């Protein structure tokens, strides 16, 4: 406990000493939000295993260490390793240690504003007012009527310390063909964190595709903690594809959270791919605020060695006639451990909601471990909800059937593994397929 106190003291000291240097310090609403977030963080701390949403995985590195804000850097070797931009990529933005390093774009696009959070706060903060959510606004509403902000401790930490982020604002009726790619790189030499705050806002009837990649930090000898939070606001009839890809070395901790709000008939497609050798956690909190909006949240996780991975979803059906689909597939090798916590909540009045959730885990090792907790909270009358969760190994009946046709055991396993993942891969639009294939090659599935 003493250790924990001294760590919190260090965060306090850091906050105090950086107070006059944080981006947005002179903007009243931004400074207020930051202050409030820090108070929340001081009060709740880093979530521990007594918090229900954090009880499956032990983040001991996160709890037992103080993470300084990673310093600005210019690492030419790290950048050299990046491949050239994909042909479908319109704009590529590279972040180093949580700060924007550069934007690569051949031309400017009409009706779209895209730049770093730092740039926006310095030059046009009015564009962002009301777009950054209060860290407590996604607190858990317990059935006991208690409002619990503790699960949002990492989001509060982000909101208190963010140094930069990406802002993508699309005006009405702007449709981008091709995708925007955001790449996060890290190269810390001591335990450091990169809190990144991003804002994505689509005007009415607009659409775009975004890939956000968190790559392994280049230094595998020291702890690195990336803490990404994105606020996503989708106006009427807009459509966003937001693909997150995460990979890490053994000492990387990647926590990536999105808060999305969908208006009338908005459409949100949000797949995530995790290949982690350290610890990773992907949260997707989505409010279907207005009628006819729909969200698809998918996840594909490959666990290896001693990695831990978590996927958490909170889909709130608020408007009528909304639909949501969640499909998660996890393959676990060696001693890896995964947890899926999915929740669908259908609020009173959200009639004619249609919500589906499926999570399947394939254990390829005796020591691998999968946890799954699907939850439905239905307060409306006319809804259609389904959920299904399975955890298992290769089915011996299937194995025998396949081998009896002439495939070796390894070939049969590969066939079944690919079939297991297929449901997630098939849904991807063609323009994103090459990025995902590259990712799968790295993970060696």
């Amino acid at each position, binding site marked *: 406990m003493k250790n924990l106190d001294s760590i919190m003291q260090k965060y306090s000291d850091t906050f105090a000493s950086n107070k006059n240097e944080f981006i947005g310090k002179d903007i009243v609403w931004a400074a207020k939000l930051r202050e409030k977030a820090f108070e929340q963080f001081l009060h709740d701390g880093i979530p521990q295993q007594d918090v229900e949403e954090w009880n499956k995985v032990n983040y001991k590195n996160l709890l037992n260490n103080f993470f300084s804000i990673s310093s600005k850097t210019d690492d030419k070797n790290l950048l050299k390793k990046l491949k050239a931009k994909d042909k479908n990529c319109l704009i590529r933005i590279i972040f180093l240690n949580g700060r924007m390093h550069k934007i690569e774009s051949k031309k400017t696009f009409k009706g779209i504003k895209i730049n770093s959070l730092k740039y926006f706060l310095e030059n046009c903060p009015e564009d962002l007012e009301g777009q950054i959510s209060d860290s407590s606004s996604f607190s858990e509403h317990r059935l006991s009527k208690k409002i619990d902000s503790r699960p949002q401790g990492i989001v509060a930490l982000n909101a208190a310390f963010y140094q930069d982020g990406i802002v993508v604002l699309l005006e009405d009726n702007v449709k981008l063909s091709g995708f925007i790619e955001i790449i996060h790189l890290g190269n810390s030499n001591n335990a450091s964190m990169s809190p990144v705050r991003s804002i994505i806002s689509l005007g009415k009837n607009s659409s775009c595709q975004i890939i956000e990649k968190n790559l392994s930090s280049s230094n595998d000898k020291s702890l690195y903690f990336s803490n990404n939070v994105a606020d996503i606001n989708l106006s009427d009839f807009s459509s966003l594809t937001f693909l997150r890809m995460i990979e890490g070395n053994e000492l990387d901790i990647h926590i990536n959270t999105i808060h999305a709000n969908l208006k009338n008939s908005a459409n949100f497609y949000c797949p995530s791919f995790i290949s982690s050798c350290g610890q990773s956690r992907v949260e997707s909190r989505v409010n279907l605020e207005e009628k006819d909006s729909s969200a698809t949240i998918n996840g594909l996780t490959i666990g290896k060695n001693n990695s831990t991975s978590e996927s958490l979803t909170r889909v709130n059906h608020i408007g009528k006639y909304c639909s949501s689909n969640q499909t998660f597939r996890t393959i676990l090798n060696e001693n890896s451990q995964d947890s899926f916590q999915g929740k669908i909540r259908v609020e009173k009045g959200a009639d004619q909601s249609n919500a589906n959730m499926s999570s399947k885990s394939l254990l390829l090792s005796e020591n691998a471990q999968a946890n799954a907790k699907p939850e439905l909270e239905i307060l409306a009358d006319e809804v259609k909800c389904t959920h299904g969760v399975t955890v298992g190994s290769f089915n011996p009946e*299937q194995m*025998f059937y396949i081998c*009896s*046709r002439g*495939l*070796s055991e390894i070939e049969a396993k590969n*066939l079944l593994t690919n079939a297991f993942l297929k449901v997630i891969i098939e849904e991807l639009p063609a323009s994103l397929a090459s990025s995902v294939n590259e990712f799968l090659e790295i993970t060696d599935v």
Partner: protein
Amino acid sequence: METLLQIEDLEVDVEDRKILAGFNLTINKGENAAIMGPNGAGKSTLAAILAGKDNYQSIKGSIRYLGKDLLKMSVEERAAKGLFLAFQYPVEIPGVSMSNFIRIALNAQKKFRGEKEVNAVEFLELARAKAKELKMNEDFFQRSVNVGFSGGEKKRAEVFQMSMLNPVLSILDETDSGLDVDALKVVSEGIKNFQTKDRSSLVITHYKKLLDYLEPDTIHILSKGKIIKTGDKSLAQLLEQKGYSGIIEAA
């Protein structure tokens, strides 16, 4: 005549119970044999053992296939050497299309035998011709293996796989069960068309109907783990009259 399969004194235990004991059977090249028997006689166990299922407590005795020890071969080796089992309960494999599955299987077997693999175009041509013979709609190529198939479709798909993989010895485990009269006719024709002097088959069934179509060279009656009577196709007729109990008593 050349011996294809020779089973001698086979004994199989499952959970301390002898499912097969003192079981002997020989199948020659080009021979079409049938095994009939009441429920629980050990018919499906025999089929599974020949295909290579190994979750049995113990397997004793000798099985020689093409002059080699079958029990020493892996499941895929048996397949590559031309042994095919049409399952009584074909297994569903979600996410793997029928055509992809059979092509991968066919090429895995060819690779094992050191033959040239077939490309997608050659495969499709062959598959279309075989599907037509079995009166199967081509849309089933793209469906996941056995997923959502009716009982009849599953059995037809097994016979389709058999004709695509072109085995030397086909073991058909109750391929007639769950089929209506029309489907039985189509499936029987499919099997019959496949019978040539180079190929052998072992048909496992409860009923005479399928055997009326197939006209096997030999019929064996299996009871309590061993063959108790062997004869030609007229044995099925006798069985129809006397029932299993009549024949078992007489033996």
